């Protein structure tokens, strides 16, 4: 039995996202941020001073049961990496590839939570938990006197890719052959680009955030390493017992020229390949949701997401939860269908064969589990891993029978370069 008590206070504080990142940097924190300019209701959540790591979905469910309350915060913050999948399926279906640098499953209860609403830049809510156990306490007395250090310029260079252009294109061809012989309908093939940056973790996160306003950002410090995500994709959210998944499929670059931009938009809306890919993933997510929900409905298909650099197609699918434990939810839904392919199990096997190494946190899911049972998780795309100046970025795309190997490779270059350029990378 581990029951925590909470104390809530409103604090008048002029804040910005740099301050939240700097606090996370200083106090081993996790910051979930929302930077879409026109979404005023966006909420930023920061947990600092980690006290308790919950090691499995069962431990999470027990903790939530013992600490149930009505409000969504505080919350357990954390992530499941893509490689965790072998813990959720029958033995022998998947190999246990893993990324050695980051844990596959990490969920943390913090001593302090800061909730900062984008609509109010002058106040924050501070929630402090007290635990019936010994731990290092962090005084809040001088917490907010922290002045974020000035941003420093720095260069970033790309050094390596986990798959060469040739290997990636061969992978695309192999997937097309698998599709023709009936093994699957679609698979997501990705590669990891690694490099070095002179930027600090906070500067890296700040540059990424500014280059690409999104809803599901993460800045997390984990044992001196960092996960920095600027993901536009929600995996699923749970509000009052209803689950909504919002898979993205289909991307096109935007243009500064309005005519060109409109043409790009029309070509995406009329793209048979993209709409078919989205349809597949909608059917896949309906399937996964039907394991734990009743009344599963497609709320919108296809829907358009307008971001600064790109347009995306996505869909909303909702259902009423029958099984509410994280254990049931994770088993039914993870990893997210939009980054595996379909059918999911066979797609994951083929991905293992072609990608040859684990994905780590990339394409896993970061989010929160509220003490009231609400949840919100992203899909960790457009996500950078940072370790002492060494960085790694995953990039990939959905491969179907209609895919062209050269074009698919080029798409992975464009996606990665959008990130690398914002970090001061020069040239191609």
């Amino acid at each position, binding site marked *: 039995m581990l029951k925590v008590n909470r104390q809530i206070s409103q604090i008048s504080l002029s804040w910005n996202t740099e301050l939240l990142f700097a606090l996370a940097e200083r106090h081993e924190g996790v910051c979930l941020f929302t930077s879409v300019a026109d979404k005023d209701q966006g909420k930023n959540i920061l947990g600092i001073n980690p006290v308790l790591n919950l090691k499995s979905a069962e431990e999470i469910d027990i903790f939530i049961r013992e600490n149930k309350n009505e409000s969504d915060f505080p919350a357990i913050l954390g992530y499941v990496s893509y490689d965790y999948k072998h813990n959720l399926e029958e033995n022998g279906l998947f190999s246990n590839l893993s990324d050695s640098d980051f844990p596959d499953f990490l969920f943390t209860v913090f001593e302090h939570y800061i909730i900062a609403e984008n609509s109010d830049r002058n106040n924050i809510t501070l929630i402090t938990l007290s635990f019936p156990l010994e731990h290092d306490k962090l005084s809040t007395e001088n917490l907010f006197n922290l002045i974020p250090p000035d941003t420093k310029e720095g260069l970033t260079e790309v050094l390596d890719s986990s798959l060469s252009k040739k290997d990636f294109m061969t992978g695309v061809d192999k997937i097309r052959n698998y*599709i023709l012989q009936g093994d699957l309908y679609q698979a997501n093939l990705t590669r990891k680009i690694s490099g070095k940056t002179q930027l600090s973790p906070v500067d890296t996160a700040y540059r990424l955030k500014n280059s690409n306003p999104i809803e599901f950002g993460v800045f997390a410090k984990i044992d001196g390493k960092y996960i920095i995500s600027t993901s536009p994709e929600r995996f699923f959210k749970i509000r009052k017992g209803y689950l909504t998944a919002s898979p993205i499929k289909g991307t096109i670059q935007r243009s500064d020229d309005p005519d060109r931009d409109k043409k790009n938009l029309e070509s995406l809306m009329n793209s048979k390949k993209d709409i078919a890919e989205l349809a597949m993933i909608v059917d896949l997510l309906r399937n996964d949701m039907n394991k734990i929900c009743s009344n599963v409905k497609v709320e919108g298909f296809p829907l358009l997401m307008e971001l600064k650099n790109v347009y995306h197609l996505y869909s909303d699918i909702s259902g009423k939860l029958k099984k509410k434990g994280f254990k049931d939810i994770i088993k039914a839904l993870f990893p997210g*269908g939009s980054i595996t392919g379909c059918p999911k199990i066979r797609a994951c096997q083929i991905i293992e064969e072609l990608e040859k190494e684990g994905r780590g946190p990339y394409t896993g899911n970061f989010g929160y589990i509220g003490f009231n049972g609400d949840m919100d998780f992203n899909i960790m795309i457009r996500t950078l891993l940072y370790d002492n100046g060494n960085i790694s970025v995953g990039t990939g795309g959905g491969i179907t029978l209609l895919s062209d190997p050269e074009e698919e490779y080029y798409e992975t270059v464009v996606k990665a370069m959008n990130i690398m350029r914002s970090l001061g990378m020069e040239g191609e």
Partner: protein
Amino acid sequence: MRLLLFDNYDSFTYNLRSLLLKSDPDISVIVKRNRDISVFEECFDALIISPGPMTWTETGILKDLFDKRIVQDKIPVLGICLGFQFIAGYFGQTIERIENPVHGNTNAMLHKGDPLFRLIPSPFKAARYNSLGLKPVSANKGCLEYIAFETVTKNIMALKHRTLPVAGFLFHPESFMTGCGQTLVKNFMDIYVKGK
């Protein structure tokens, strides 16, 4: 009424289960994966074969289940996609790559007024996820009857057995893109399982 839903490690199986449960609130559906030998101990009124990856010969213990139980006990069967391909293959037809493979899109299909298509217009639209199937002209249909076709390529989209209560759809009634899925499953339940 108890249905056995035979899952070929697919990602649409639970959509099929939801469709079956909606067709009749009194039925129960048990899902078993295709390597699970406990199916031989199960009692069930009908077998539903899920879609799935790979080919009809890679469906675990399904052939064994047909050999030992389904055919001799005349248990009603509905096969979807890979399930359709299994039925065609098991009863002697050749499954091969077809022209016009489709994944995640609908095609217009014609049916021949078979009772399974009661209340369904012809042509009708249904979702497809397949690269393999039956060629339009099959010299020897044997014990099978073909009851729906893709309008352009004339590929076979639905079949039934002439004497056993066995039917299959190559398209996907459980997809959100197939409007008539609920009616099709209800027709199967009424005609094949409840004998109405």
